[in-house]
């Protein structure tokens, strides 16, 4: 973890000027400024404003700012700002990029259909989205407890509102309320933990707390403080036993919000969790590793089993997100270059983002195409006839989430995580994880069964087109021709959504075929040297 060591040095020197700090934090500032600007504009020129386009432009600007901060050269990283409150190192830079791309995708998914999904005030929606994105980026870039907490709250507050943004729908309000009540509770618990840590060590910076903890003698208080802090994170990731909010919130929130939440917020939370665990609590591995193993195991088992019974695809994906949180935690158990937990987590987060974003995009399109706006698995029946492309993409995403080729990124991601756990000597946990992930195959494939093998139950128009289907020689001839009728309820896919879905699908295959592209991003040194170092270590 050279990143953190170098960070310490920069923090020590007070030579970083305000201007430099502003430059380093420009990706966050662009987002914040953009959000305010959008809010102002929406007051004055509401009618002529395309908020989604404006939001997308802001996100792209932020990406560019990030690239300018990072792209100067590897030597510049890590850079810190505001006296060590925020730092951009490899992990936070990559994660910021991932979060921005995720937000951009969710904007493309939502563009032009906010009102249809019950969101009446587009400008406010996108303002909140920008704020949540900024919070999420800051969450994984903060290197000090107060900044961390503020980032968490910025992100969460905006998210509570986003969940309830479909004012006209009851479920949306319910999901916002649930999320708010449970979320603020968990934030309070975490804040209490932070307060105890401050009391124990007299410091709020990560390094200060880390060195203070290593020297602290009150074991009980140290453990309580750590446990309280961990609970806040576990809640945000949505892992068992703090997962109860996830299915209701995921299901009730508008689907593009779910897509945003399931991917970017999860990525930010896991990355921030990683930093806190490895940097702040680095010396207390024995304590938190047992805590994390139990949570990871429970998440993998409970998430997968509960997902089996779901009829709503969104709810199924919510439980799948709980299970995936469990897989990701296996990576948290494998600190250090040899085990490669960090690289595995980053890779899996990217893969999971692509797969879930794509899957929820398809869910969004399908649920908009029926009158009730339902995402029940029944709505997917016969999707192959209605839109072969959509069905094909969804099949790819489902196979990827199940960890089966050709959804390669999902498979390789799981392999990275499991082998990092094995290298960190959590063999049993990895085996249980693999076994739990088999259960996943069933419910993911169930969606494929519905799309491809079942006939649509809907009755519809009288169009008998495409005669070659009628030559089907089964005895199910009758059912077939019935399905034929409903097969051509048209599904419109806007170009923005099509772009998102295709990007996800292509990247799933490309990144799965060339996994090192993502894996090496957060490697401090070229992998070859690491291998030699490892081998030497064993030979000694």
């Amino acid at each position, binding site marked *: 973890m050279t990143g953190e060591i170098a960070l310490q040095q920069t923090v020590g020197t007070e030579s970083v000027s305000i201007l430099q700090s502003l430059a380093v934090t420009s990706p966050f500032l662009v987002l914040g400024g953009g959000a305010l600007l959008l809010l102002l504009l929406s007051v004055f020129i509401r009618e002529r404003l395309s908020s989604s386009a404006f939001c997308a432009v802001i996100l792209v600007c932020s990406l560019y700012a990030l690239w300018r901060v990072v792209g100067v050269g590897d030597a510049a990283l890590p850079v810190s700002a505001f006296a060590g409150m925020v730092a951009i190192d490899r992990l936070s830079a990559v994660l910021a990029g991932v979060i921005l791309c995720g937000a951009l995708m969710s904007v493309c998914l939502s563009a032009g259909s906010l009102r249809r999904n019950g969101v009446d005030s587009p400008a406010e929606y996108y303002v909140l989205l920008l704020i949540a994105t900024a919070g999420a980026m800051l969450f994984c870039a903060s290197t000090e407890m107060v900044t961390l907490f503020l980032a968490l709250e910025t992100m969460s507050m905006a998210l509570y509102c986003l969940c309830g943004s479909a004012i006209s729908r009851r479920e949306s309000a319910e999901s916002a309320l649930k999320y708010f009540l449970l979320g603020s509770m968990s934030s309070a618990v975490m804040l209490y933990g932070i307060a105890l840590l401050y009391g124990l060590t007299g410091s709020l910076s990560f390094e200060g707390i880390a060195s203070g903890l290593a020297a602290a003698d009150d074991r009980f208080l140290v453990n309580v403080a750590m446990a309280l802090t961990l609970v806040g994170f576990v809640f945000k990731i949505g892992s068992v036993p703090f997962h109860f909010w996830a299915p209701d919130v995921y299901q009730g929130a508008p689907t593009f919000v779910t897509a945003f939440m399931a991917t970017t917020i999860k990525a930010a939370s896991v990355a921030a969790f990683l930093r806190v665990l490895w940097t702040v609590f680095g010396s207390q591995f024995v304590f938190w590793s047992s805590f994390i193993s139990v949570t990871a195991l429970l998440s993998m088992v409970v998430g997968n089993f509960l997902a089996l019974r779901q009829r709503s695809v969104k709810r199924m994906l919510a439980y799948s997100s709980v299970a995936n949180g469990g897989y990701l935690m296996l990576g948290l158990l494998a600190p250090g270059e040899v085990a*490669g937990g960090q*690289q595995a987590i980053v890779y899996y987060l990217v893969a999971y983002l692509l797969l879930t974003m794509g899957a929820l995009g398809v869910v969004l399109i399908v649920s908009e195409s029926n009158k009730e706006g339902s995402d029940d698995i029944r709505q997917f029946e016969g999707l192959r006839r209605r839109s072969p492309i959509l069905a094909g993409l969804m099949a790819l995403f489902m*196979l990827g989430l199940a960890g*089966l*080729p*050709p959804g*390669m990124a999902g*498979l*390789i991601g799981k*392999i*990275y995580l*499991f*082998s990092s756990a*094995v*290298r960190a000597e959590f*063999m049993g946990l*990895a*085996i249980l994880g*693999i*076994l739990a*992930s*088999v259960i996943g*195959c*069933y419910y993911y*494939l169930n969606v*494929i*069964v519905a799309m*491809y*093998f*079942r006939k649509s139950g809907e009755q519809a128009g009288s169009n008998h087109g*495409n*005669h*070659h*289907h009628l*030559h*089907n*020689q*089964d*005895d*199910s001839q009758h059912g077939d021709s019935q399905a034929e009728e409903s097969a051509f309820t048209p599904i419109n896919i806007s170009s923005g959504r099509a772009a998102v879905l295709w990007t996800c699908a292509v990247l799933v295959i490309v990144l799965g075929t060339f*996994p*090192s592209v993502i*894996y*090496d991003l957060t490697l401090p040194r070229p*992998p*070859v*040297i690491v*291998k*030699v170092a*490892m*081998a*030497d270590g*064993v*030979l000694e």
Partner: protein
Amino acid sequence: MFSPSILETNLLSVLTWLPLMAAVLLYLPVFSPKADPHGGRARVFAIFAGGLVFALSIPLVTRFEVANGGIQFEEVYDWIAAIGVRYRLGIDGVSLWLVMLTTFLMPLVYVASSSVEKDRRGYLASMLVLQCAMTGTLAALDLFLFYVFWELMLAPMYFIIGLWGGKNRIYATLKFVIYTVVGSVLMLLAVLYVAWRAYEQSIAVPFDISLLTQSLTLSFREEMLIFLAFALAFGIKVPIFPFHTWLPDAHVEAPTGGSVVLAGVLLKMGLYGFIRFAYPLAPRAAEYFGPTLAVLAVIGVIYGALVAWAQSDIKKLVAYSSVSHLGYCVLGMAAFNSIATSGSIYQMLNHGVTTGALFLLVGALYDRKHTRQIADYQGLAGKVPVFAAIFLIFTFSSIALPLTNGFVGEFLILVGGFKTFPILTVICGLGVILGAVYMLTLYMKTCFGELNADKNGDLTDLNRRELVTFAPLLVLVFVMGIYPQPFLDRIEPTLDRYFTEVNARSERLASVSPISAEERATEESKDDSLGVLNLQAEGSLRSDEIKLIADR
């Protein structure tokens, strides 16, 4: 892409990925339902692609160095550097013929796709993806790459049965998937465990099967676990007796082409996996479980034959005959000597040819009358003589009549098997008789007797397209039956080398981590100390290897 040099250096990659490219090209607008409503163009294109791949695969045989039993046509690239996975392809005498069988059978399946009415483009694309996965599985020499290709075989087969299958297709396809996934997860666990042990013992490439065979050290208990995991994964695929129940369902529901591929190539993957991975990695466990496997194999032979005898559905009969025939192959493999194993490999090829043809024949009948019940057919010999003649030849081949291919394979297996398991082999010989009973009964019931003019009066004989499909299979039945030497010549040097290597590994393991029945509990600690000694002894070699990697 098709410059000659790539065919020299990367022939196996070309053979693997060309079908996939063809599958992608099938989604060009030229083949869309509007431009090509009946899928005729798609079929021609697939036949062309399959034929091209077959033509390109011929140099595998001609350029194959007969006396060299090692890996040939090798390709190595780094793939997932972080955990040491490489893209390593290569074939030896065992996989050579299975690859050839794949490239040979698939064009016939594309030709036979004219009976698929519904979305033929999708069907052909699935088949092409399947061909890519099968070739890759047979050529992969890296455990993880093998696993990926193995899993890639699942998705297209899932769609082929589920979309183009019969009435109970959803049930059959789910059963197929659940069995396969359970097996492959166990395999994944075994693969990761092996790789982890290799990593601990600082073997340079922890997923490379050749390196692992040479230098991986495992305790006897680890071997047992690994072998069991592999055996379950591969045994389900073969299928070996208690795990066979998915097969008849899958066969009956699958479209004709699906059955041909399933019987022709997919089932062999299990046996191939045993020979390539399970036996070399865990030789002592393989020896330990050999008799068990042989008993299960013989039960499969007899049980499969008896159940086949009782069937009223022709396709189900052929499906159970597969269970029976693959029992021979398992017996040959379990006997673990050069004759039996070469017989086993030869029998895999025969089974691919013969059973593939039988499924095509059943498909031809079904296309005409939409029934597969034996009772619905009678006296076909008079009405459709060409069909009956071809059916007779493949029936003979299936019951291993001399001069047909089946005879050579079964003879080798029985001769070799007798050396190791005399009693079991004798029982297995009874299965040969039973095989004759059920196949000849089937032939008698369908082809002889009075023709039922109401039902089958309008039956037409095989058309030109079907004759084209059967012709190469017929030729092979006799070529392989009369002059098997060119095939066996290429298998034997590989097997000689294979047995030397596996036995050497077995001895090395026995000396490095001996089995101590009383001292199971203390086995672990002993094992570790010996492991360290071993590492010190081989330290110099290792550091050389490491330097090589660093240089690269």
